[in-house]
């Protein structure tokens, strides 16, 4: 975006235009806000996005359904497994298949662990931006433990590409349950440490309470979802309102804030981590036995040893690799409760192995457009804290 010169000349001389980003320590990568200042007060803010627009939606029109899966990893790269699972479930909805109970349960556990990993980063970085380095170093170590579990399970640290249409790429490894349980044992202590460092910290409270306020009506109007909407007092959680993956079988609470400020968002995220731990604790007990993948040779790759020995399986293998899965003509919307809010996938299929249109509704996109409303009239120093509390991830913002 270019700043309009005429507009600058016509402006009162005591206003200053300041460019925050796209290369700025606290702008979380590739965000840019052009702010007009009167002293230290922001009078007008214009966010500018697109600095990480990688053409993901266009690219997916040229890829088969399984080939799109790696692209979804790179949407919200802080909790990549949730995007994977959301996308795969959208495709499964279009194909009309139901995965096995074991795969469902595994997906649920992975989703909740990802949520914890995402919230740790969000809260930690928010504190770093405001000036508290210690909580980040405490809590980031816990994220590394989740990384270790995921890495053992999927083979990658950041981009997993682990689910498949109709199941998962591999079953869990022996000892997975014990490691998750060990994490659940160990996590409450650092979480308490984090809270004790922040929740009653005078500086943190002064910098966050009453800052970046958005009311419940405004939040709904702007299309807020996830922790930011719940912090404003609207108890909308897709896991409870439109359950998927069997969330209805588990006992959890939806934390809700009252003021819709940074502090409430922080508290909601902390409580969501507790609730996620709660869900995982219930889900890890008695993961259903049985196969992890559906038994449909038209949709799921047969076992490798059968491919090598049997003609029919070889043909199925070839068909899936070459043509992918072919959903019927139609359109489907599937949304999951990702760490930042409602992550929706809209797929319009004309038949055939490639989608005619794949649209990704990233939760950040709707949230970030209300950013000027939150910062206008506030001090420039508050911009950073507010931005951190919204947890804007450029990958899912710009796609």
């Amino acid at each position, binding site marked *: 975006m270019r700043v309009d010169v005429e507009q600058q000349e016509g402006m009162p001389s005591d206003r200053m235009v300041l460019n925050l980003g796209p290369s700025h320590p606290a702008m979380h990568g590739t965000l840019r806000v052009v702010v007009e200042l009167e002293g230290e007060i922001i009078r007008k803010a214009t966010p500018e996005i697109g600095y990480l627009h*990688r053409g993901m939606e266009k690219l997916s029109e040229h890829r088969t359904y399984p080939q799109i899966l790696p692209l979804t990893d790179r949407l919200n790269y802080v909790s990549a497994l949730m995007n994977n699972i959301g996308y795969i479930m959208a495709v499964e909805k279009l194909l009309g298949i139901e995965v096995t109970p074991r795969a469902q349960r595994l997906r649920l556990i992975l989703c909740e662990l990802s949520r914890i990993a995402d919230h740790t980063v969000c809260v930690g970085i928010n504190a770093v931006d405001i000036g508290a380095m210690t909580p980040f170093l405490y809590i980031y170590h816990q994220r590394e433990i989740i990384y270790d579990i995921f890495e053992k399970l999927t083979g990658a*640290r950041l981009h997993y590409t682990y689910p498949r249409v109709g199941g998962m790429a591999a079953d869990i490894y022996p000892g997975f349950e014990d490691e998750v349980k060990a994490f659940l044992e160990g996590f409450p202590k650092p979480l308490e440490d984090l809270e004790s460092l922040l929740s009653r910290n005078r500086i943190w409270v002064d910098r966050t309470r009453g800052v970046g306020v958005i009311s419940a009506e405004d939040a709904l109007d702007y299309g807020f979802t996830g922790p930011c909407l719940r912090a404003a007092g609207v108890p909308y959680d897709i896991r409870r309102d439109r359950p998927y993956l069997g969330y209805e079988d588990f006992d959890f609470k939806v934390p809700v804030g009252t003021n819709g400020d940074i502090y409430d968002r922080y508290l909601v995220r902390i409580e969501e981590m507790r609730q996620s731990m709660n869900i995982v604790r219930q889900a890890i007990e008695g993961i259903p036995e049985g196969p992890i993948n559906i038994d449909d040779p038209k949709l799921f790759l047969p076992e490798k040893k059968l491919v090598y020995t049997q003609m029919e399986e070889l043909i199925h293998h070839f068909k899936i690799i070459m043509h992918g899965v072919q959903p019927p003509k139609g359109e489907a919307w599937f949304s999951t409760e990702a760490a930042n809010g409602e992550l929706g996938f809209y797929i319009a299929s004309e038949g055939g192995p490639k989608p005619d249109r794949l649209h990704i509704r990233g939760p950040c996109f709707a949230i970030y457009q209300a950013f000027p409303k939150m910062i206008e009239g506030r001090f420039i120093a508050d911009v950073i804290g507010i931005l951190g509390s919204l947890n804007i991830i450029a990958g899912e913002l710009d796609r």
Partner: protein
Amino acid sequence: MGIETIGGDSFVTTTINAVANWGRKNSLWPLPFGTACCGIEMMSGLASRFDISRFGAEVVRFSPRQADLLIVAGTICIKMAPVIRTVWEQMMEPKWVISMGACASSGGIYNTYSTVQGVDHVIPVDIYIPGCAPRPEALLDALLKLQDKIKKETVLDRRNVPAAERKRIMKKGSRESGEDYTAWPGKSE
């Protein structure tokens, strides 16, 4: 108990290269230009477990004037290309560039209208890290490799950098697109 008690009131002989390179390689101040996913792994590299400060590169500077190592971590899109060029031009000599991850090195999986197919089209790169996303160990390894590279430099290498750089980019341009970059504005010898 240090070097002074062994040597006493003495002197040390060395070369300018050895001293300068020793100082340069052990105190690289990085500017983390994390645009996408690799930025998260770079963050892991800075955080508690991998701890880049073991190699003297933990003083993260977001001002290009204060940094001497640019870590480009993530996809560079067409909107971002002028920005990264400006950031690089603002950095003081001596400066080095690490291109972290497949996207920064070659565009990665994004062969699309909005992605620059490798940051080396825009700025010269010293070390490329493969992987999508590379592990933090890979970043640390790249740092060590860069330190090795710095160790072998002579201070004279940096005396006439714009010309050397121009040659490098000219060579690259002529190889790939057959175009003439001799009329490169703003860079006279």
